[in-house]
């Protein structure tokens, strides 16, 4: 227990007085700090369908299921579930960094500095590459007070950060890890819906910024502005929609051989415990493909409400299925030299883990090996153990192939980054 100290007491007394009308704090100053989430949603949206619970059948066991928000405080390094985690023979898993509450998407600078976004705590972190004498890497908070800054992308010295409806660029970030640099606004022509509003972002081999806009609810007829992936010049100009019918992608990467964009997509909830699967998709013709939502799910299943009058043949089928409700988020091709040859160009996928399912599924990192036809027949477990007795000991969000060829995995439940390495 923290000892009783005078500053807290004084503050407590001030609080008691302020509460009863004797306060000295200026309400205006407080309002200035208020974080506005968004304005009202577009009128074209059936707003009461924005809830994650829309579509749920009445009563029964379904009523016991609800989304799980992770805690805002990071788990102490000594209490991380490292001893529960399992990797294949020859691999090793260790804690790379801890104390990053709600650690989500990752990107790495050439010098090894790792940048990490968050969804619920408003912060962006930098993890310094060299561990100190105590074996721990220093974590700096480079920005706070942002609105769901889930997406991060490093490019030519700058860090791009995606809030819910604004994308910022922090120039010369390596010299501003103390948070002193004021960012430049890159792009804000984005909806402000909270549902599926947080973003993964990345910069493609074409030096363009790729930005998803999720569907504004579980199962809705999305406006033209939603359920898509956009491609934008790095100065925020020339935005174009390159993929439609995408419910909510929170991870993508480019196939190192074909240079085509591969992305995960989270399937709708409440139809069934066992369908539809989350999808692994490939964009082969930018701007011309529709990936099914809300008409067709998993390439084979027409929606009970929106599917009538449609056939799944009208839409681009997924390259692979990732399990029902698994919340397949971050994905990257393995382009490193450290892992065995069988992992070359394989896809690592972080499955955050289900909530819309009685027996939880996911909460792991799986590996997919596309065949010569570009299809994925099955995924196999790679990093497991986050799911214990139908409860989460941790929840993987993103995977990143580090400069040294190891695989970094973020865990927003514990606020930690793990490192999986081979043969060292």
């Amino acid at each position, binding site marked *: 227990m*923290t000892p*009783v100290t005078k500053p807290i007491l004084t503050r*407590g007394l001030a609080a008691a007085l302020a509460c009863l009308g004797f306060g000295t704090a200026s309400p205006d100053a407080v309002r200035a700090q208020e974080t506005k989430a968004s304005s009202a949603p577009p009128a074209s949206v059936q*707003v009461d369908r924005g809830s*994650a619970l829309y579509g749920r059948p009445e009563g029964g066991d379904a*009523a016991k299921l609800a989304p799980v928000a992770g805690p805002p405080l990071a788990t102490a390094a000594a209490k991380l579930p490292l001893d529960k985690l399992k990797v294949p023979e020859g691999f090793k898993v260790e804690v790379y960094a801890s104390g990053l509450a709600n650690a989500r998407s990752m990107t790495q600078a050439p010098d090894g500095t790792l940048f990490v976004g968050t969804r619920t705590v408003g912060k962006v972190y930098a993890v310094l590459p060299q561990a100190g004498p105590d074996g721990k890497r220093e974590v700096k908070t480079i920005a706070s*007070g942002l609105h769901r800054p889930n997406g991060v992308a490093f490019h030519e010295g700058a860090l791009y950060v995606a809030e819910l409806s604004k994308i910022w660029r922090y120039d010369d970030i390596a010299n501003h890890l103390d948070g002193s640099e004021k960012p430049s606004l890159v792009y804000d022509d984005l909806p402000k819906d909270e549902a599926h509003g947080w973003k993964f972002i990345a910069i493609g081999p074409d030096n363009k910024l790729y930005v998803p806009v999720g569907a504004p609810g579980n199962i809705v007829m999305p406006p033209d502005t939603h359920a898509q992936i956009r491609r934008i010049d790095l100065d925020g100009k020339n935005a174009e929609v390159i993929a439609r019918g995408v419910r909510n992608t929170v991870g993508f990467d480019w196939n190192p051989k074909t240079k085509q964009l591969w992305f995960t997509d989270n399937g709708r909830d409440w139809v069934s415990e066992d369908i539809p699967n989350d999808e692994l998709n490939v964009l082969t013709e930018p701007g011309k493909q529709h990936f099914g939502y809300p008409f067709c799910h998993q390439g084979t299943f027409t929606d009970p409400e929106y599917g009538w009058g449609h056939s799944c043949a009208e839409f681009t089928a997924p390259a692979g299925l990732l399990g029902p409700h698994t919340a397949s988020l971050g994905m990257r091709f393995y382009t490193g030299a450290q892992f065995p040859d069988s992992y070359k160009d394989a896809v690592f996928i972080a499955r955050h883990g289900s909530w819309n399912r009685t027996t939880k599924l996911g909460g792991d990192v799986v590996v997919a090996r596309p065949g010569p036809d570009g299809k994925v027949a099955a995924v196999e477990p790679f990093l497991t153990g986050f799911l214990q007795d139908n409860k989460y000991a941790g929840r993987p969000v993103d995977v990143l192939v580090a400069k040294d060829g190891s695989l970094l995995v973020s865990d927003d439940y514990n606020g930690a980054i793990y490192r999986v390495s081979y043969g060292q």
Partner: protein
Amino acid sequence: MGHAARIGLIRGLASALGVLLAGAALAAPEAAMQERLAPCVACHGGGTSETEGVPSLGGQQADYVVTQLFQFREKQRAAEPMNDVAAGFSDDDLRAYADAVAALPAPAWSGPAAEPALVARAQALVSKHQCNSCHGADLAGREAIPRIRAQREEYLARSLASYKSNARPGYDPAMNEVAQGLSDADIRDLAAYVARL
């Protein structure tokens, strides 16, 4: 200032002064925590709040209290004086306060029962918006999802309105999403009904 508030002020001052006088004197951890809770109790009551606009904390889910104190500390949720109160809290403080208020007796409605017409309208809203799905069959919450039953009526109404306007971004956006479908009349009915449970 009402009678209850005046008593609250006197109690709050007395408690706070008492703690000040005690200084950093060594005490049993439980007693120390009770002393640290005194300024909270001054406004929030010993489980049930008698102060307009200030929520009852008794029986609140500890994980939920942690997220709220965190949001106050980080200025993600604006609510004077809580932003100042939480400004210097360590992570351990958040947990300690959360565990302590969770152990206070839960609020219970003691006035006349809700009118049948209100109950019927509100129960239909609870069903339509699936409040029970997260808050539980008895609306007592679980884990990071708050206890809302028998919460103060005007506080419930203000919370729903500020979720709807997004002036209060939830720690998780679930309530911002669900509140979009509520009319002003829905909010009045829900607050009146849930407060009377």
